[in-house]
């Protein structure tokens, strides 16, 4: 029993990280129908920025905040350079452009930080928490709490503020929103910025939980975000959160039951099953596909 609970906590920790990364990804998709292949790479660069700031002696909380803001800046630049010029082109074009932006970010990061795996400082102390027969990592508990907090805050921001309402309008119909005077470009930029912020927050937790920052993290994060968003219902905000959690738990369950080699196989099988049975994902049913 304790064993199952420990594995569940491992799954929740990794799942809440996936959830945070998936949120930004899903946000962009819900507004623009753009599969944002650069998202994971923005996150990777953000995690490296956090590492460099920490190594330079910046106080941890401030360093993480700055890194998240660097995620905002990179996302905004990528939007301006790679997405906006092709926004009204055929859907394939922005997707390729996103992929290209991802490669540029990954090559730049490799030039600056090198191809090795770097250790990441432990900002949240890693102490074992013992509850009865159960031993949990303090980190997984804190990570889950941070993820829930950030999701609630972002959710409030998108549903209860004037900006959030504007974003919903842009999502429903970009042209109509422009006609009623909503500054569409500003809203889109803000969505990217928010995605970058949440993503880097997830990326820093990711780096800390694994002890490591590395270039391939970008592709890994993109894949997991994509999978979590598909699972939860692409474009749905809560969907991305629950999708991330379920993906994390499914992966951990797969490793515990079948062995580490089955991690990606089982999680992808879960996704295929969900999509077969519920083509819109677990939480995406309410949204009609916008063409």
């Amino acid at each position: 029993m304790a064993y199952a609970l420990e594995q569940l906590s491992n799954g929740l920790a990794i799942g809440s990280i996936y959830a945070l990364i998936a949120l930004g990804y899903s946000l962009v998709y819900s507004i623009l129908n753009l599969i944002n292949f650069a998202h994971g790479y923005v996150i990777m660069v953000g995690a490296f920025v956090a590492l460099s700031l920490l190594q330079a002696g910046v106080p941890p909380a401030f360093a993480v905040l700055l890194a998240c803001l660097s995620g905002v800046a990179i996302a905004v630049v990528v939007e301006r350079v790679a997405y906006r010029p092709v926004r009204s082109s055929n859907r394939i074009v922005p997707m390729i452009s996103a992929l290209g932006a991802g490669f540029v970010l990954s090559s730049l990061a490799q030039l600056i930080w090198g191809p090795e795996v770097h250790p990441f400082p432990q900002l949240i102390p890693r102490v074992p928490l013992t509850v009865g027969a159960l031993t949990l990592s303090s980190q997984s508990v804190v990570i889950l709490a941070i993820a829930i907090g950030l999701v609630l805050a972002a959710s409030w921001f998108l549903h209860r503020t004037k900006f959030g309402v504007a974003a919903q309008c842009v999502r429903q119909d970009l042209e109509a929103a422009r006609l009623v005077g909503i500054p569409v470009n500003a809203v889109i930029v803000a969505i990217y910025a928010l995605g970058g912020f949440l993503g880097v927050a997830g990326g820093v937790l990711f780096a800390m939980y694994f002890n490591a920052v590395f270039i391939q993290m970008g592709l890994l994060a993109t894949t997991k975000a994509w999978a979590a968003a598909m699972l939860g219902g692409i474009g749905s905000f809560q969907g991305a959160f629950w999708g991330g959690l379920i993906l994390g738990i499914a992966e951990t369950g797969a490793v515990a039951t079948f062995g580490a080699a089955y991690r990606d196989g089982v999680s992808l099988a879960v996704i295929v099953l969900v999509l077969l049975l519920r083509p819109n994902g677990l939480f995406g049913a309410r949204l009609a596909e916008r063409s």
Partner: protein
Amino acid sequence: MAGTTGMSRRQLLRAAGAAAAGAVLPGAFAGRVSAAEEVITLAIAAPMTGDSASMGLNAQRGADAAVAMINAAGGIAGKKVAYDIFDDQGSPREAASVARRILDADKYAAVVGHVNSSCTLAAMPVYSEAGIAVLCGSSSNPKVTESGWDNIIRMTIRDDYGAQQYSAFAANNLGRKKLGILFANDDYGRGLRDEMVKAAKALAADIAAEAGFTPNADKDFSSVISDFKAKSVDAFMLNCNYTEGGLFLGQAKGVGVAGIPAVGPDSLLYDEFISLAQGGAEGAYILAAYDPYSQAPKPKAFMDAFQKAYSALPSQVAVFTNDFFLLAKQLMEAGATPQTLVKAAKDAKFDGAGGHYEWDAKGDVKGRTFAVVQVKDGKFVSTGKSVDEKGLEKLRG
């Protein structure tokens, strides 16, 4: 990055081509190296580009060190030593073509290489046709010496014997009986794992848990750690590279799994292993094909000189390449010719930077066990221990 490696590869190929072309003419008259020639040239076959290019660089550095030392001391029986490098790119197909080029040049006393087992296995049929001596450092696949070729010797400990020694160290030296194996899920990792399991059985130790991971992709070991802990594993057998090994131990420390000794191969012998583990690597044992921290005069002199020249730790490829040049010197000064080099080596005793070597009839090093290095106070130190192989005899027939 890609641009510069492309450049160096072109340059290398051009250099190799020029070397081959230049060798054809004198070769037509002289045949393979004869006593009348001024220079003894060895061919190094190693990956200078591609994924394992760092090993090729190490081979070159090891050779440079040896050549400088030998020529400064008057060469081999009065003749200077030189080498040419052939880039096999770590690919078996390229290795076979490199082998042809080396033989066509018809000027090399011996081949030092290849590094990757798959390359050695692909090139050996070509070399064995001509009978040229192949001095192979780091190819550890058992087939390298089990395929019936009589013109090859190697320095490293073969995979099957090596894997047995990991289990023997945990079971005999540390007295651990419930082993947990973490292994890279590729040909190499699975091969090692199979031998470790076999050896553990022979030593009456139990494989309590095991987990294969996808190399270079998996970074999360938390669920594996929970599993090992639930099955009361009392030794971590880390059959992997320093990245995964370090991350595994760091994540284990994070959930309070401490005091369980880790045992692993020399692919962990990098400073990054210690830093990635963030304190979790303390006390870990690394079984290495040579001991970089040995205080014996020969290894220490080589290590210090290498550190000074390149500010890097020599990998075993560097040490073995260096030692093969010195071995060639010792044997040729005792009267061996290129044709009899391998046969002479099998009868010889040799001391190099990597320690003491003797070879059996197949060409494997004889009676050589791993050097045991341990992490102490965040640094690698030599323990001076050796693996207690009691109980392994029955596996070796």
